[in-house]
């Protein structure tokens, strides 16, 4: 099994090389700004001088979407082995997986009914 990961490891090195290459060539070419000014290096805000700090406060809405995502993500870790063994499972075992999914669907419906999935 580990032999297969030799390839993955080398591909990772190649990918890293590619990334560093694209990143490094302009750096090696020394394409630095010849004239620098504070106007040039200001954060771009459509022509206005930036005002205040960039880390503005966010709505908790984003956090709720991430929560729902997290729950479904963990569900996937359970369901992938289940789907993999699907052919070997008896009917009731498939039903168990279905109940697992239905419980999560219930959670989704609850969140939905509470109005947490609305974009405010």
């Amino acid at each position, binding site marked *: 099994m580990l032999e297969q990961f030799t390839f993955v490891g080398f591909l990772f090195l190649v990918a890293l090389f590619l990334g560093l290459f*694209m990143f490094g060539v302009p750096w090696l070419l020394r394409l630095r700004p010849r004239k620098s000014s504070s106007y040039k290096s200001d954060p*771009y805000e459509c022509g206005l001088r930036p005002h205040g700090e960039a880390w503005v406060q966010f709505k908790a809405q984003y956090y709720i979407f991430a929560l729902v995502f997290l729950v479904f993500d963990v569900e996937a870790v359970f369901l992938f082995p289940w789907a993999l063994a699907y052919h070997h499972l008896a009917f009731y075992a498939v039903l168990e997986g279905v109940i697992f999914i239905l419980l999560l669907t219930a959670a989704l419906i609850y969140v939905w009914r509470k109005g947490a999935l609305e974009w405010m």
Partner: protein
Amino acid sequence: MDFLRNAIVEIGLWIEGLLINAGLAEPAADVIMTVVGAFVVGFTPLMIVVFLIWMYRKVSARIGGRMGPNSSGTWAGPWGLVQPIADVIKMFTKEDIRPQGIDVIPYNLAPIIIVVAAVMIWAVMPFGPGAEMVGADLNIGIFYVLAFSSAALIAFLMAGWSSNNKYAVVGAFRAVAQLLGYEIPQLLSILIVVMVVSSFVGPQGNPLSLQSIVEAQEGMIFLVVLPLPALVFWLASLAEINARPFELLEAESELVAGVQIEYSAMKWGMFYVGEFMGSVAVSALFATIFLGGWRGPWVDTAPVLGTVWFLLKILFMLNVWTFFQMTLPRLRIDQMLAFNWKFLVPLSLFAICVIGVVNKLIPEGATSWLRSGILLATNVVILLLAWAVLAIGKRRRELRAPAGAGVEVGA
């Protein structure tokens, strides 16, 4: 002639033979071949991307009724073929502006992570029949792809956070809200495919490996057997690669480019390349999972044709992508989120339950034709049900809101 039938594998064996003849021990030659393979697999998507940029310009120009790169005023080679090279040179030689107040390490790391994640996906892609034509036929196959595509999310957050720009932060938040959300229908539709493959390949074979997903499509491609997961997967993938109608990450007219706003020169180019690589990867995944991958006529006699079919299928899906890109408008963020959470996710959850149960009820001895037919019928029924639910919902909304009072679209 015989050589050409399986040309890619033969060339590999020939090089390895040369190495062994040159006095290398066999394990060392194996390692060298693995490295060569990694280079080939790593650079293939990049080559496709360079070609894709050219094709995208041509096709989008045609769709938009514009002149393409071959008539941009300056000479760009026959059919504008030199255009992508000019693009690359331009990108490499542009001035690299460093904005004030950036967080240097995450800022520079983000584009690298995007490129790395986009390349890593290709490790498990089957380019042709046989174990030699897959980089590594991992037994977690498709799950590996999902893992790396979700790891790329973090790059967006890093870029957004470290750019010291309000647009970038808002863009990063939006990007992640979109990419996170649409990952779920994507993986749920893949789960359906895995279940079905499991009952097609039987006790042997590993339904997570992409090679056996291709092998399971021997009788019929999955686009026909499982049209619903195919549709869900494609829509979710469009959102994952930030294509229209889900192009909210870039949204140049409201977010000025989202997380990429403070990136210039090649660092911006890496985001650009990463995006194109993503669309190639998604097209390749769709071709593998739903269009039969390397399957096509005469593959049995000449396995090298499998690679050709595979590339042609990728090309076809890329054209579909270009078509979507050029013809659809951008959704609003509430529509985008509602479409995912209130339509795609419940639909695919429902589909998993129904298809899982129905597929299990088909007796094990059933021919693959019978199984395919029943699955297709189930899919169509679910699609009709979804359509009916949507129609009823629309009707009720119309009854509730009097005409003219801003009816919510697509929610």
